């Protein structure tokens, strides 16, 4: 139960963290799915080409970042419709990976660390809580985070400090690409190969987790663990519940939360708005 929850929640968590940076800076990021996919692809290609999983991790992260920069150029510089660009990037990523699909050779996984009372997991699993706490402090306790969030809350606030809103939005989107890319690398490293469309909607699930967690790192990651737990297959077998119902539970819950029926979820005030 715990291992499969962790394995499900970790890639979600990285993508969700990335999405939080981007959306806090005011840029809607539907492209998490594509960034994860490119990350997974980059990991396998990089590892195959170099023989080193570290190079693979680097390439995967770089691919995620490259897609993020494309998203940023289109949305921040050209004020393109953020939702449409996100969908476009997802189609693009699917196409690129389909076009360049390597021979499905197995690659090595990222190194596992043994920790007392925890068992042995990929080091990325342990990295997530560290990044989660760091992100929380960064976003809510430092001037850096205040500025990033100001970019998402108001179109004018940064201008009054003669700071560039565009620069902070670029930073937010770029971070989302890096983090989603790492999430994708983890996904590929756990199964040791790349298959077409292997992210299977995890990017969108991460988006749901962001909303569920009210655009905050701590509760966002908590949502990822909840979703990971809901989709851990053993639950379905034990209680004889249709697995499809459990799989769609995160989506139903997110809709309920978004409607404000249970608790409230408030997006950054100027999310998706480029002009005042």
């Amino acid at each position, binding site marked *: 139960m715990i291992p499969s929850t962790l394995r499900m929640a970790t890639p979600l968590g990285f993508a969700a963290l990335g999405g939080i940076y981007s959306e806090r800076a005011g840029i809607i990021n539907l492209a998490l799915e594509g960034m994860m996919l490119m990350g997974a692809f980059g990991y396998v290609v990089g590892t195959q080409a170099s023989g080193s999983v570290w190079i693979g991790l680097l390439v995967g992260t770089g691919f995620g970042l490259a897609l993020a920069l494309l998203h940023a150029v289109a949305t921040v510089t050209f004020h393109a419709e953020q*939702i449409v660009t996100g969908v476009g990037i997802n*189609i693009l990523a*699917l*196409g690129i990976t389909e076009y360049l699909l390597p021979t499905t050779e197995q690659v090595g996984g990222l190194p596992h660390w043994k920790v007392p009372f925890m068992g042995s997991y990929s080091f990325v699993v342990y990295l997530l809580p560290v990044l989660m706490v760091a992100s929380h402090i960064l976003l809510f306790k430092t001037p850096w985070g205040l500025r990033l969030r100001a970019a998402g809350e108001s179109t004018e606030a940064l201008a009054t400090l003669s700071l560039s809103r565009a620069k902070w939005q670029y930073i937010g989107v770029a971070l989302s690409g890096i983090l989603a890319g790492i999430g994708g690398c983890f996904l590929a490293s756990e199964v040791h190969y790349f298959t077409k469309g292997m992210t299977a909607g995890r990017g969108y699930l991460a988006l749901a987790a962001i909303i569920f967690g009210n655009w905050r790192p701590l509760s966002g990651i908590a949502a990822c663990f909840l979703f990971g737990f809901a989709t851990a297959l053993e639950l379905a077998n034990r209680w004889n519940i249709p697995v499809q119902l459990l799989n769609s539970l995160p*989506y139903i819950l997110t*809709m309920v939360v*978004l*409607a404000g029926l249970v608790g409230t979820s408030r997006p950054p005030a100027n999310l998706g708005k480029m*002009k005042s």
Partner: protein
Amino acid sequence: MSNFSRDIEKTLNIQKVFATLSRNRASQAKHLFVNLIPPLLALAGFFLLCGLVLQIRGQDPLEFYTIILVSGFASLDDIGYVLFNATPLIFTGLAVAIGYKSGLFNIGCEGQLYIAAFAAAWIGIHLNLPPFLLIPFCIGGAMIAGAGWGAIPGLLKARYGAHEVINTIMMNFIAFALMNYLVTSVYQEPGQMIPQTQQIQEAARLPRLAFLLPVLPQSNPLNMSFFLACGCAVCCYIFLTYTRWGYELRLVGNARDAAAYGGINPSTVTIWVMALSGAVAGLAGVAEVMGYRYRFLDNFSSGWGFTGIAVALLGRNNPFGILAAAILFGLLNKVALDIEILLEVPRGLFHAGQGMLIIWLVSIESISQKLFNYSRGVKQGD
């Protein structure tokens, strides 16, 4: 500010919006040129990019360009395949455009078309009626199912202000799960391992064109649903341009406040626009179940709901533009298969190109708008 002057200001606003709406129609011909430039530029970029990739692969781009023309238009059979490919995209493109005109993003076409396809299949299997009754029942039932699935995000937006983009995405995944459940445990064809329902009755099938036109080979899948799609495009055009509801829809999209002031309830409009959009998206499922496969197969759609966004963008949200754009995409999908066989270029190239095309389309629009505003001396942010 007094109530009176505020009223005056609002009236002026409404007049401005009214002027924009009516001018749009009058000067559409004049601005056709301006409207055509962005899609044509994006398309040129798309074909150049594909050619460039082939050049890098060490293949002749010219050969690729000739294949596009030959594989799409060489014979009646080829044209039939192109139009067959285009059919679901016409529906999803129209569905996206209907939402967009009212300021709503329907990213849930994929889920809506699955739900509708299943409804069509269920009615087609279980209802014993003659064809002239069963076919309208199937289509109507599918549209109602699609409309219901689309109306939920509309309702949540109107009632609770929940963003329709997120909710339509969530409802996509719920639809996928629901369909998978129904087709693997409740309605699976007996004695089969494939996740699909049994075949619908003969009476519920839309005739193939090959039966009516002997010049077309019997294997050609083009069927009546293509004409349904063309009719739907014409209806959408008339609905959006000449009816009161179409006007309300566009007014809410262009100026929500002015619409409210003019006595239109934007919340009501939001709900029925999403339902209408879902119903039209559902027709794509009808085309698949009643026109081609004659059963519901799990995961039958290859991202039509998302390609519909590209189609609507390329067609500038105009029903006839969408018709043209969908046929172009139908051609591209056919070419993608042909170049995979003839030139050994993976079809992923075309999917990647489609994604790039979407990004270009929305960016070019903003760039040209910026240039247009700049040349007219309008400041950004006005």
